[in-house]
């Protein structure tokens, strides 16, 4: 792999950009791999990357039914934060956030991590108490957050209206080290690094069956033929239920559509990420100047990657009250992704009833921020059979009643 650098840009400029290589190979599948990862989104690619980097397992195939990073990795609002209430969540999200800080250097790929700060607005008395509790919990967990006053909120976000009649701003939970990243670049950077380690990324290759012998996985059938493996990792977000059914176990997951939208580009007006969880809306400004807005999830099972219009209306209506200046903005695009929701709104990184099949799912509405931490923990789980990052996120927590309850802690905008 040729490294990207300022020198490389100059070199290629001098020869009319004829020397750039493809960032990753597109090989035909081999007969057998040590590990097959299903799903070439951020989490799947990160899992493969850390299998290679931390454990030296490079005979790996990553199978993707569509195109690389075309699912939720390319559909989220790119927010990165780790201000969670429960200890296991804070640990894995903070691991992820800290890995994002050095990701561009680690991957030699600019993922445009921008630690601009994330502010979660408290717009009810309940939220004020909830976020003060979270700030205290974060202090104990070693996650740097603070509860800030409305005056400080106004300093951070001059365009905000503090005195909305329905949703006044009573304070906020401020994580200065949170921010945004370039979501596609995260997938592309991992893919390039995986390919460089000799892993095969096979796109447009849909898994149609999971083959087992004596309760143990031996391979998968795909649209590009049968492929054998020793270990199988299922990292497919919204389609986890479909894959689990192939493997022969059930999941405590329901798939629903979550939407986002962007406005026309405008001049810089907001240099942090603001989340308003009471009204199910969150907003940041992209480098191109578009206001990136995330909304609420639909209340019914859905695999169509598009959501209901009335949710957009609800989100925008509420945000306009808090940010009056966006009321005249035209919206450019709207899209949806299929998110996999668990009962306690925490992910599942776990062994499964089928031996040597591992699953990483249930990230729900907030998976992007977790990509590196999720991959780090999942790789350790697959390589060693256990990981301190993932042990609280096992499938058996539902049977044993050991929930990692974040649905109350973080509201909807996870």
């Amino acid at each position, binding site marked *: 792999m040729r490294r990207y650098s300022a020198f490389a840009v100059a070199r290629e400029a001098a020869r009319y950009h004829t020397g750039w290589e493809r960032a990753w190979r597109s090989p035909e599948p081999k007969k057998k791999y040590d590990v097959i990862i299903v799903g070439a989104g951020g989490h799947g690619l990160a899992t493969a990357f850390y299998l290679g980097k931390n454990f030296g397992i490079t005979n790996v195939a990553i199978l993707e039914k569509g195109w690389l990073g075309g699912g939720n990795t390319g559909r989220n609002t790119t927010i990165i934060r780790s201000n969670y209430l429960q200890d296991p969540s804070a640990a894995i999200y903070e691991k992820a956030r800290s890995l994002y800080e050095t990701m561009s250097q680690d991957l030699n790929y600019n993922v445009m991590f921008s630690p601009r700060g994330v502010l979660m607005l408290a717009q009810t008395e309940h939220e004020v108490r909830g976020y003060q509790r979270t700030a205290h919990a974060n202090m104990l967990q070693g996650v740097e957050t603070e509860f800030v006053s409305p005056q400080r909120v106004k300093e951070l976000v001059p365009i905000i209206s503090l005195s909305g009649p329905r949703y006044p701003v009573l304070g906020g939970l401020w994580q200065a080290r949170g921010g945004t990243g370039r979501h596609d670049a995260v997938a592309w950077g991992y893919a390039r690094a995986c390919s460089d380690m000799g892993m095969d990324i096979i796109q447009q290759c849909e898994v149609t069956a999971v083959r087992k012998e004596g309760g143990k996985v031996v391979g998968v059938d795909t649209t590009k033929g049968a492929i054998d493996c020793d270990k199988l990792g299922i990292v497919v977000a919204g389609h986890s239920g479909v894959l689990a059914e192939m493997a022969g176990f059930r*999941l*405590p*997951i329901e798939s629903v559509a979550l939407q986002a939208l962007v406005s026309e580009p405008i001049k810089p007006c907001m240099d942090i990420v603001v989340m308003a969880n009471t009204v199910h809306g969150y907003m940041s400004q992209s480098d191109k100047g578009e206001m990136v807005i995330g909304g609420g999830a639909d209340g019914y*099972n*859905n695999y*169509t990657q598009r959501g209901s219009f009335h949710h957009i209306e609800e989100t925008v209506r509420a945000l306009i009250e808090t940010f009056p200046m966006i009321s005249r903005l035209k919206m450019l695009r709207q899209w949806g992704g299929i998110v996999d929701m668990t*009962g306690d709104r925490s992910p599942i990184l776990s062994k499964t009833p089928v031996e040597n099949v591992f699953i990483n799912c249930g990230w729900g509405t907030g998976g992007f921020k977790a990509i590196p931490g999720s991959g780090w923990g999942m790789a350790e789980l697959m390589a060693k059979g256990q990981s301190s990052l993932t042990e609280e996120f096992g499938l058996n927590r539902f*049977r044993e009643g050991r929930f990692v309850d974040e649905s109350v802690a973080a509201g909807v905008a996870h």
Partner: protein
Amino acid sequence: MLILECPYCGVKGEETEFHGGGEAHLKRFGPGSSEEDFEGYLFHRENPKGVHLERWRHVNGCGKWFHVARDTATLEVFGSYSAQVTEPPQEIKDAISAKRPGWSWREFA
């Protein structure tokens, strides 16, 4: 946007008039059941990409719960029916079979 018909008051409305209530026809397991059954009842869901039987409530209407047969991959609604049944009536099954031959849902159909 979904258009649903409430089988009780006969009103056809779009989805903001209703509220989704999740998977239908769950078999309830309580005290005395095995841990597997209890876990399955509380947490495991079919979550199919295809025919889905589900509960809805006519919140901004008559307030009653009812059932809907719908395709989660296309959002096509096959019909709605009473909440007082443990499986869909034959005409709903027929309506699904006409569009999705070979569909299945747990132990019936």
